[in-house]
């Protein structure tokens, strides 16, 4: 009896090891693809954040009446990309940083009928840059936390 069991084990072992090996490789490949996608999302989000900051600062420096919609469109596009991070919709730290960034650009007297023209040294401009950098750092942190 012992001989029969040992014989069966001997028969099935290579197949079992092949399957196990395939499962491990498959898991590693999936993880690698997920990481690549996450990297792409993070990189794209960071680019969009920089674009939104640039458009926002341009709005506050020049204030042409038709630019506020471009600011909002840029922020909307950024939000769409950020929503690809798990937990964003539920109010993650990433959402928190995005909202603070949004507030820095579109708060205060954004879309006011009596616009102020700001210089680069204005505290509001500095705040936009600060919030942009905080958002960029959080995007990177979120990527590492979720995808690595």
């Amino acid at each position, binding site marked *: 009896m012992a001989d029969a069991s040992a014989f069966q084990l001997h028969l099935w072992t290579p197949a079992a090891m092949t399957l196990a090996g395939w499962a491990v490789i498959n898991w590693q490949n999936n993880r690698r693809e997920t990481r690549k996608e996450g990297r792409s999302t993070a990189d794209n989000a960071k680019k969009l954040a920089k674009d939104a900051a640039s458009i926002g600062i341009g709005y506050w420096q020049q204030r042409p009446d038709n630019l*506020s*919609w471009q*600011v*909002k*469109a840029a*922020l*909307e596009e950024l*939000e769409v990309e950020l*929503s690809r991070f798990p937990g*964003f*919709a539920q*109010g993650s730290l990433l*959402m928190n940083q*995005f*909202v603070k960034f*949004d*507030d820095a*650009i*579109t*708060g*205060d*007297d*954004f*879309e*006011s*009928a*009596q616009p102020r023209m700001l210089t680069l040294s204005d505290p509001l401009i500095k705040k936009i840059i600060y919030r942009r950098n905080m958002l960029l750092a959080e995007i990177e942190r979120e990527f590492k936390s979720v995808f690595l």
Partner: protein
Amino acid sequence: MSTLTITVAKDFSPSPAGRYKADGKFPGQVFREKLLLPAIQTHDQVIVDMDGTEKCGSSFLEEAFGGLVRSGISESTLKQKIVISSQRDSDKFRIWQYIQEASQHQN
């Protein structure tokens, strides 16, 4: 329980913008005074549907919703009465943040 839905895009504007009446046709102050405040005073629940609107600036949202607290409505009353409906994840988050911040400033 009486419920009123305010569809911002249809009942107010698909492009709300600015803070005060002087800022244009569809600023936060007008939205609050003409639609939000009367709705809250006369209904048990007010659903604010943001779908179909252009993304709102913080100036608009803060004046519209944070302004409710400055108008004398407590944060706890607003939590009972207002429901924010939006496909944009940040709308709900931002609005409640402005309400909370306005409440903290009052205290």
